């Protein structure tokens, strides 16, 4: 075979010009890129932009209505009563602060737990070990949330595993309460932190670590000055999950929280229990506002590209 055969006319068994595009297709004017983007975006935007945002908007509107306490009927009369109550009654402020603190604490605990294991997975483990670890981290996601929470309830109880383990050190289980809630939530959401941090560290070029140690930095210094700052957006990405999941939780806290209650309980009690959707909607504006502010702040770190 020589290259000259390429100049020969098409083989007789194929129609001449079979490899030329049919004229109709060739002449079709290209759609403008904007139009194409728009067409692609239409379904997801209808879903999220219209349906989901619409639902949120309807909820917000409901927050300005009120409810007949006895019949549970919603009365479509504009009122600021719900917000007035929300801001004047102390207990709601207490609960909001407590919820944010727990969400923040859970996030910090998860970040502290996730970072080393993600670092190990991404930069130390062999390819095989890495694969196994990814499975090991993902598997608990399939086990039921409730069952895991109850397992922690059993472990945290007076005669449970934790007090049994801690007894030799003269320590005891924290018992049911906010500490237990934090621990349980941190446990439940840990994979949601490990995965983005692992992905972020995977992307970190090895040459940067080498450069750091080449320039005289010990491992710990490299960790502090190069790895941590570069993994930060990924950690923040993970924190979006842990923070928001913790802020909205109301089940784990009833299982291990002792007498404690969080914002989620207030929303749940008002909508699921008292059937007071307007007040529940008003309470729900707190996590919505917090998350919007949170997202706006973390957007600068590039975290949203690291989810």
């Amino acid at each position, binding site marked *: 075979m020589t290259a000259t055969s390429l100049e020969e006319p098409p083989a007789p068994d194929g129609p001449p010009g079979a490899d030329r595009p049919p004229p109709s297709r060739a002449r079709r004017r290209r759609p403008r890129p904007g139009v194409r983007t728009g067409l692609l975006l239409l379904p997801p935007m209808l879903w999220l932009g219209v349906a989901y945002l619409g639902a949120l908007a309807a909820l917000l509107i409901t927050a300005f209505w009120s*409810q007949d*306490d*006895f*019949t*549970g*009927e919603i009365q479509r009369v504009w009122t600021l009563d719900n917000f007035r*109550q929300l801001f004047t*009654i102390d*207990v*709601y402020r*207490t*609960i909001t602060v407590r919820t944010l603190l727990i969400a923040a604490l859970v996030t910090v605990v998860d970040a502290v737990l996730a970072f080393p294991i993600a670092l190990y997975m991404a930069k130390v483990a062999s390819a095989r070990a890495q694969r196994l670890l990814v499975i090991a981290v993902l598997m608990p996601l399939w086990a039921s949330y409730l069952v895991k929470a*109850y397992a922690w*309830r*059993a472990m945290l*109880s*007076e*005669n*449970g595993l934790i007090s049994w383990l801690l007894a030799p050190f003269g320590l005891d289980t924290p*018992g*049911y309460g906010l500490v237990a809630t934090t621990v349980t939530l941190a446990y439940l959401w840990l994979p949601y932190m490990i995965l983005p941090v692992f992905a972020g560290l995977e992307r970190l070029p090895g040459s940067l670590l080498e450069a750091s140690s080449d320039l005289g930095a010990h491992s710990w210094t490299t960790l502090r000055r190069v790895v941590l700052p570069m993994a930060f957006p990924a950690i923040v990405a993970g924190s979006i999950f842990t923070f928001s999941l913790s802020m909205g939780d109301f089940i784990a806290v*009833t*299982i291990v*929280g*002792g*007498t*404690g*209650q969080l914002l989620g309980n*207030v929303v749940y*009690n*008002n*909508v*699921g*229990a*008292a*059937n*007071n959707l307007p007040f529940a909607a008003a309470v729900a504006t707190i996590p919505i506002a917090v998350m919007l502010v949170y997202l706006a702040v973390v957007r600068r770190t590039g975290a949203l590209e690291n989810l």
Partner: protein
Amino acid sequence: GTSGGGGSSPSANGGFTPPDVPMKQSLGSMEGQVNILAWPGYAEDGSNDPKVDWVTPFEKQTGCQANVKYFGTSDEAVKLMKTGQYDVVSASGDASLRLIAAGDVAPVNTDLVKNYADISPFLKDRDWNSVNGQMYGIPHGWGANLLMYNTDVVKPAPTSWGSVFTGASQYAGKVTAYDSPIYIADAALYLMKHQPGLKITNPYALDSDQLQAAVDLLKKQRQNVSEYWSDYLKEVQAFSTGDSVIGTTWEVIAQVAQGEKVPVKAVLPQEGSTGWSDTWMVSSKSQHSNCAYAWMDYITGPQAQADVAQYFGEAPANPKACDLTAKNFCDAYHASDAQYADKIWYWTTPISNCLDGRKDVQCTDYGDWTQAWTEVKG
């Protein structure tokens, strides 16, 4: 009433006028299915345990396919009934009036329910299931909120609710209580007996001062509470691990715990207690009202009553069930003991028209109680 007596006068509920919902006049042919909203354990279809099944016989008998949805709290039941998707609901007293007032349920024509005649008389025409003498449902079963304690720890045996209120500090961090606004009534009941100055006559009819007193009592109690419970598992676990040693309970929980060899006992304290009496009610928007009536009749029949009562652990409304239950069961649950039943203040929805008949004050309603409960928990 004497010592207890959950509001004996039939018209005590302030004479509020329910919306005008037509009552079913005659039975027609079965619609082929029925949507049942029930407490877990009230309508078992064998899907969780093939041996526990009284829904399938119902389906066979009537040709109505039963779709069962369970709810965890009364409040959830109220919310779900508003959707109009359910034909029939097992409403506790703290839900029933709300359903009636909202027009979510229809008056029940008791003539169309054959087994109604056999229902214990002390369950008929009560505050929580009737308005102005019109029944809005068929009584199903009842029970008391008892005081359970760990016999190894709590000595001597308690006889008063005082051991979880004023005396709670003795068991600091080990007291438990029911997690619902309706638990405020337990505190009110205690105050009714021990602080006559508050002039509480019905724990479900509290003016704002009385409510405040109950809330204060509960806030003090909270300092000694380990946790509030709302499901079986949580409480049985807490008593078996020792995380809780004293607190309010249901008979069935005590029985399960004893079955697990947990050293506990449940008593009806001297003050009497709150309790529940559940009523099957028909949705005002029911698409399957014939099947719904068939269900109400079926579930209040002796066999179904016996099955439910034993599985769930409560007193059957139909005393004929006692012939079909295990020996001593009905005695243990005081099924036919009108005296015992009279000591119970059954859950009733607090409304602003005072249920005790007072006309000079506005009472606090369930919304106020919900808020108060949030504040109690802090």
